[in-house]
């Protein structure tokens, strides 16, 4: 049995194309482990990331920000696709019940646990690590103050669950207010033209935030995040039942990939001129447009590639798809605990990255096997 997105149906997919989206969702989520692990070696994030290592590499920035620009847009596009599927199969009530069970409950349970685990390992690192990251040093200074400032509450890396809930509510709003027909009309547009227009739709989201865009971890909905990920979610919902709409784009796969590469090279060049310490800087329009182009075309490329190469069921991909949700929930506190300990080791960044990702995935997959796969927990996070 293949599981779809967090909150999606647990029913087996009925056609090969769903397998493709299922696998894409898993890869988008699991690439998050790689992304978060890589940030420890990012020169751009060195001053801010809690587990920032002494060794850094510009290659990490080149890799990580590309992943960052595509993986969550892809995730939300796939989530939108499965949301529309759930509405089609079970109706709005079924969708809401499913989202409560598969998103709201896991969010409410995992949130405090993740927060406690991450805080505990950070407190340990602040007290024990001999080679602290700049962030840990800053926390040490804070703690030495008579009235240390408290960090505002945030959703942490579980922000995607919060936004999935928001998008579910917005899907209900859109459906109730009859916006579905507008979306259907938009999909009558030739996909080539749509592909040219959609970066313009996404660009305001990038324009409203800093570059590179952060995770919208605030407890309040962030306009930029809604404007950035909302169109992808809407695209996903519009694609449900119309997957053939993407067909004319298949011959654009390689040119689009090349265009994304070119746009990303220019973006990296722009990024290299940024002051790494100035994270309050909002993107100029040209950078926002470049990011929108990479995010949209990159997502379309991933969808096309998924439909071409990931459409057939494969046991290992199916297993990853089922375990991805649990892995993603669990990975960050584990990764932080590991990387805090690795701050003491003098490892080259490729070894550190490989070790932290490997160990984190090993623990997550083992715990999935032991705690989730054959237990009732699979109904919530399996």
């Amino acid at each position, binding site marked *: 049995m293949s599981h779809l997105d967090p909150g999606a149906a647990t029913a087996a997919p009925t056609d090969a194309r769903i397998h493709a989206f299922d696998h894409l969702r898993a890869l988008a989520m699991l690439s998050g482990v790689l992304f978060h692990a890589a940030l420890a070696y990012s020169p751009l994030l060195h001053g801010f990331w809690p587990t920032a290592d002494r060794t850094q590499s510009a290659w990490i920035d080149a890799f990580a920000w590309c992943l960052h620009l595509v993986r969550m847009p892809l995730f939300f596009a796939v989530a939108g696709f499965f949301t529309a599927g759930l509405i089609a199969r079970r109706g709005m009530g079924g969708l809401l019940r499913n989202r409560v069970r598969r998103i709201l409950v896991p969010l409410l349970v995992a949130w405090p646990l993740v927060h406690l685990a991450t805080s505990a390992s950070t407190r340990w690192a602040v007290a024990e690590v001999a080679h602290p990251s700049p962030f840990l040093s800053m926390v040490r200074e804070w703690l030495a103050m008579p009235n240390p400032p408290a960090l*505002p*509450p945030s959703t942490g890396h579980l922000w995607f669950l919060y936004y999935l809930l928001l998008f579910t509510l917005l899907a209900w709003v859109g459906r*109730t*207010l009859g916006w579905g027909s507008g979306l259907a009309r938009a999909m009558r547009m030739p996909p080539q033209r749509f592909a040219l227009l959609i970066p313009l739709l996404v660009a305001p989201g990038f324009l409203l935030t800093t570059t590179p865009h952060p995770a919208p971890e605030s407890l309040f909905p962030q306009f930029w995040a809604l404007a950035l990920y909302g169109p992808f979610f809407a695209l996903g919902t519009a694609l449900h039942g119309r997957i053939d709409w993407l067909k004319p784009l298949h011959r654009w796969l390689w040119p689009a990939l090349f265009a994304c590469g070119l746009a990303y090279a220019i973006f990296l060049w722009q990024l290299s001129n940024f002051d790494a310490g100035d994270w309050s800087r909002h993107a100029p329009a040209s950078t926002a447009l470049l990011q929108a182009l990479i995010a949209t075309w990159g997502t379309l490329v991933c969808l096309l590639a998924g439909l071409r190469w990931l459409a057939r069921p494969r046991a290992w991909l199916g297993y990853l798809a089922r375990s991805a949700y649990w892995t993603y929930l669990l990975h960050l506190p584990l990764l932080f605990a590991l990387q805090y300990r690795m701050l003491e080791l003098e490892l080259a960044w490729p070894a550190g990255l490989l070790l932290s990702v490997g160990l984190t995935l090993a623990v997550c997959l083992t715990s999935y096997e032991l705690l989730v796969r054959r237990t009732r927990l699979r109904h919530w996070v399996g």
Partner: protein
Amino acid sequence: MTRQLNWPIIRLLMIKDWQLFQKQLAAYLLAGIVSLGFLGMAKPWAFYIGSLLLIILLVAIACFAISTSLLVERKEQTLAFVMSLPVSPLDFTVAKLAGNLLTFAVPFLVMALFTAIIVFSTPLPDGLVVLAALIFGHVLVAYCIALTVAMQVESEGWNVFVMIGSMVLINPFLMVIGQMESVQTVVRGNAVVWHAPVLAILAAQVLTGLACLAFATWSNGRKPAFY
């Protein structure tokens, strides 16, 4: 004499109200997300727009639920159709009360929760929670009074007057509590202190609200006929 409530019918009546409400509620939900988005911008101007929008929304939801489910129904003679169902006046009263309270309580509690989060998670003084609780208490009691009057009075004019009047009274209420020492001293500080006068007002608000609802249930439930 005790009467068995017809829960399947009550449920159906509530579903009917929900189906009538949902378009407007969807619009309110969208406005709620937008206003929370303004608050999330963490800028003074956005805070004022967001909080103002939230209060307007709260008042609008309170008035809208009463207006759609009671006043419009009365005007459009929907009651005549309801009377053709196997439903007693008590069933009808319970359905109306429960449907209305649900429509109001969900956004009310969500907004109260987010208001507390705003206060505690931003540099705003935590003592503002006391003022916020009193304002929410006022909206609650105004809603309960308006709902009770709407269920009792046959006049649409009086209903609208009470609905708007009780909500507009928020201004003099704010002026009065703003001058109370037990509120003034707390709202500017970071300690959340519930002084006795504040607790007394909150208790009075809750008790008044409950008394209104109890009266509405008792008064409508004992009617032998719908009119």
